[in-house]
C-alpha cells in the first residue's frame, strides 16, 4: 500500500479514530493501541501481496525468540550464550536478506550451476522493505546484547527508562507501518522507550501538518512529476546513445532532485504519520544538497542508514581506532556494503565503492591540511566563500553523477548515457528542461530555506513566526491537489 493511495487514506483515518477511541484511555489502553497499530501495519504491508506477511512473521517471531533468550542470558550473566544467540539472530536476519536479495545475483554469477536452477532462483521475488526490517531486527538484537535495552522487573526496558512489554512490543517495533517499508531506520534503543499509552491531546499537530504537507509536496508535486521525464532515460541504451546532451544532462539533474524529493518526502510523511500516533522518528534528511564534501553529505543524507552503518558496522570493524590505514579500509568497506545493501548488482557496488573511495580520500586530505580547511563542519564555508562554493559544486556533481547507478537498469545503459552526452548533437526537447526548472526549483527553494536555518537563524525563526509559513503551506497544498504527477511508488521501496 502506498502513502499516496486512497486505500491508505481509509486505513489511516480508521486506525487513527480507533487508536484514540475513548476506551484507549482505560487499563488496557496500551495493549489496544499497540495491537491495533500492529493489525494496521499487517494490512498495510500485505495489501498488494498477502504472501509477504509470512516472511515478515518469520522475521518477527525469530527476532522475538532471540531477543527474549538474549535478555535472559544477559540477566544471568552468561555472556557466552548471549554471544551465541546474538550471532544466531544476526545470521538469521542476514540469511533472510541473502536468500531473497542476493541469492539470485550470486546464482547468476556461478558458472557451473544448471540453467534451470539459476532461472528458478532468479524468479524469487524481492519482498518489499526486507532491507529495512532486517536492519531493524539486527539493531534490536545488537542493542539488547549490548545491554542498551535490558529486562527489569518482568518488563523489557531501555536505558531511557520507559517500559515496554514483551514480544508484542518487539513485533510493533519491527512492523510499525510508517517505517516498515522504507525507514527511517529507527534503532531499538530510540524506539522502545517511547512505547506507552498515547493521548490525542499530546499530538504535536503543527509538526504533523508541517511534515505531511512538505512530505507529500516533495513526493507528489516534485518527484512524481520529474519521474515522468527521467523515466525516458531508462527506455533503451540505443535511445540514450542517439539522444543529445541537452536532453540527457537536464534529466540527470532532474533525477538528482527527484530521488531527494522522493525519499525525503517519504521520510517526512513517515515522521508525520508516526507523530500522529505519538512516536518520534529521527530526521532522515538534513538538506543534503548543501553539503560541501562527501563526508558531510553522508551526515545529511539518509541519516538513519548512515547512523546504522556507523553503529553496527563501522565501529565494530574498528572505526578510526586502529590507525589511519585501517580507517580508510573501514570507510571503503562500509560504503561498499552500504552500496550492496541497496541491491544485488554491480552498479550498486560501484556506487558504494566510489562513495567509500571519496570518503577515504577526504579523510586522507583532511589529515594533512590545516584544521581550518578540514572537511568536517565545513558547511559554514559555503557562505560567501568562493572555495566553499567550489567544494559545494564539486560535491553536488559527484553525488548527482553517481545517482546514474540508481537510475539506470545496468552498466550498459550508463555507458550509453555518456556516449549520448558526448555525441556532439545540439537538439533538445522542451519538457525535460521545463520540468527541471518548474519542479526542480521547489527543491532548490527547500534547500535555500535550509541554508537560511543554518546560517541566518534569526531570519528563519522570524519567518516561522510570521504568517508566511501557512501561506507557503497553502500554496503547497494547492499544488498537491491541482498539479500532482502520475501516481507511482517510492524509489526506495525497491530496496
Amino acid at each position: 500500500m502506498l502513502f499516496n493511495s486512497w486505500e491508505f487514506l481509509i486505513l489511516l483515518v480508521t486506525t487513527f479514530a480507533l487508536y484514540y477511541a475513548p476506551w484507549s484511555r482505560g487499563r488496557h489502553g496500551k495493549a489496544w493501541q499497540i495491537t491495533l497499530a500492529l493489525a494496521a501495519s499487517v494490512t498495510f504491508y500485505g495489501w498488494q501481496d498477502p504472501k509477504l506477511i509470512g516472511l515478515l512473521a518469520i522475521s518477527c517471531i525469530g527476532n522475538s525468540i532471540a531477543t527474549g533468550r538474549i535478555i535472559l542470558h544477559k540477566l544471568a550473566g552468561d555472556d557466552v550464550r548471549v554471544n551465541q544467540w546474538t550471532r544466531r539472530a544476526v545470521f538469521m536476519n542476514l540469511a533472510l536478506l541473502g536468500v531473497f536479495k542476493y541469492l539470485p545475483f550470486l546464482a547468476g554469477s556461478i558458472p557451473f550451476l544448471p540453467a534451470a536452477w539459476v532461472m528458478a532462483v532468479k524468479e524469487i521475488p524481492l519482498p518489499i522493505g526486507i532491507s529495512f526490517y532486517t536492519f531493524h531486527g539486527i539493531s534490536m538484537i545488537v542493542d539488547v546484547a549490548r545491554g542498551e535495552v535490558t529486562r527489569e522487573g518482568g518488563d523489557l526496558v531501555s536505558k531511557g527508562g520507559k517500559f515496554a512489554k514483551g514480544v508484542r512490543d518487539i513485533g510493533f517495533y519491527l512492523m510499525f507501518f510508517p517505517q516498515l517499508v522504507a525507514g527511517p531506520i529507527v534503532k531499538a534503543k530510540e524506539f522502545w522507550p517511547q512505547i506507552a499509552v498515547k493521548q490525542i491531546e499530546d499530538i504535536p499537530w503543527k509538526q504533523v501538518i508541517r511534515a505531511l504537507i512538505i512530505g507529500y509536496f516533495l513526493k507528489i508535486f516534485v518527484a512524481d512529476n520529474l519521474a515522468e521525464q527521467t523515466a525516458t532515460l531508462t527506455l533503451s541504451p540505443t535511445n540514450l546513445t542517439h539522444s543529445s546532451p541537452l536532453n540527457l544532462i537536464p534529466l540527470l539533474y532532474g533525477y538528482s532532485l527527484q530521488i531527494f524529493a522522493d525519499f525525503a518526502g517519504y521520510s517526512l510523511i513517515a515522521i508525520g504519520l508516526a507523530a500522529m500516533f505519538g512516536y518520534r522518528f529521527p530526521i532522515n534528511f538534513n538538506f543534503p544538497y548543501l553539503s560541501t564534501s562527501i563526508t558531510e553529505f553522508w551526515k545529511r543524507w539518509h541519516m538513519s542508514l548512515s547512523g546504522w552503518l556507523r553503529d553496527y558496522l563501522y565501529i565494530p570493524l574498528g572505526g578510526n581506532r586502529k590507525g589511519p590505514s585501517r580507517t580508510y579500509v573501514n570507510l571503503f568497506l562500509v560504503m561498499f556494503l552500504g552500496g550492496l545493501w541497496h541491491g544485488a548488482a554491480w552498479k550498486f557496488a560501484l556506487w558504494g565503492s566510489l562513495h567509500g573511495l571519496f570518503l577515504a580520500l577526504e579523510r586522507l586530505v583532511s589529515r594533512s591540511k590545516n584544521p581550518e580547511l578540514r572537511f568536517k563542519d565545513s558547511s559554514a564555508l559555503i557562505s560567501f566563500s568562493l572555495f566553499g562554493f567550489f567544494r559545494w559544486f564539486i560535491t553536488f556533481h559527484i553525488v548527482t553523477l553517481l545517482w546514474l547507478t540508481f537510475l539506470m537498469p545496468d552498466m550498459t545503459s550508463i555507458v550509453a548515457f555518456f556516449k549520448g552526452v558526448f555525441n556532439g548533437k545540439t537538439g533538445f526537447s522542451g519538457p525535460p528542461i521545463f520540468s527541471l526548472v518548474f519542479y526542480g526549483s521547489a527543491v532548490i527553494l527547500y534547500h535555500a530555506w535550509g541554508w537560511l536555518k543554518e546560517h541566518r537563524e534569526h531570519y528563519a525563526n522570524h519567518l516561522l513566526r510570521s504568517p508566511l509559513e501557512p501561506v507557503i503551506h497553502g500554496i503547497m497544498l494547492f499544488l498537491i491537489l491541482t498539479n500532482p504527477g502520475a501516481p507511482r511508488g517510492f524509489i526506495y521501496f525497491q530496496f
Partner: protein
Amino acid sequence: MSYILTLVLTLAACFGVQTLALRAVGGRTSKSESNFFSSIGRIQAGAQDTPEVMVLGSSITGRLPDRSQGFPGVANMGCDGGSAVDALRAIDKGILPTAPWLIIEANTLQLALVEKPTEIGQAMQQPWFRLGMRIPVVSAFARPSAFFYSKLLAQKIGGFQDNSPATDLEVRSIPAQIEQLPADGLAPRENAMIEEVSSILLRLRARGCQSIIVWLPPGRRDGSPPASWILELARRSDSAWWDLGQQAAPGTVVLTDGVHMATPSATRTMVSLMKALGR
C-alpha cells in the same frame, strides 16, 4: 487557529487565481509538459458539455483544434502514446459521453494491438479522472504547470514556419476495400481487435453515433495501402473510410517533427473535416 485560517484563505486565493486564469485562456490550457496529463486534460475537457463531433486518436489527433479553439461542438480525445481504442473503450463503458459523429484516427490504430492497456486507458478508470471531468479546477487541463507550458509552446509553435497554401484538404469517402488479404490471413490479435472495436462501434451506432475512420496527415511515407485489418474494421463496423494522408495534395500540410501537424495545418485539416461532415 490563525495558522489554519491563513492556510485556508491561501488555498481559496490560489483556486480563485486558477479559475480566473482558466477563463483567460478560453476554458482550458492547450498542452502540459507531461504527455500523460496533456491527454488526460484534453479528454476531460472534451467530455464536458455535450459534444457533437468527437475526434479520437493519438497525439496526431491531439494537435487538431477543438471547441476551445474555434470549433464549437468539437471534442478532441487524442491520447498521446495511445490510440482511438482507449477512448472508444471508455465511451463504451459509459465513462465518456458519446457524440453524433465519431472521427477515428487510423494512423495509430496498430498500437491497440498490444494487449497491455495504455497508461491513459487505465487512468480513465480512476475516480480522480471522473472528478476532473466534473470539477475543472482539479482537472488535468487546469494544472498550473500547463498554463506556463502552453504559453511557452504557443510561442514556439507560433514561430514555426507554416507557409503551406491555405487550401482545403480533399476529403472524400471511399469504400473500405481490401484488395488483397495477406497470404496467411489476419493475425489472431488483429481479428480480436476487429471483433472488439466493430462491436463497440455497432453498439454506438444503435445509440445514434456515426463513425468515420480517417487516416490523418501525414500519409504513409511509401504510399503503401493501410493495414488490411484496419480496412476490414471499417467494413465490418459499417464506418466511412477517409484517407486524408493520400488524398491531400503534397505540400498542403506542414509537420513540426515529421509526425505532428503545425497549428495552421491542423486547423486546415479540421476545417476540411468539418466541411466534409456538412458543418
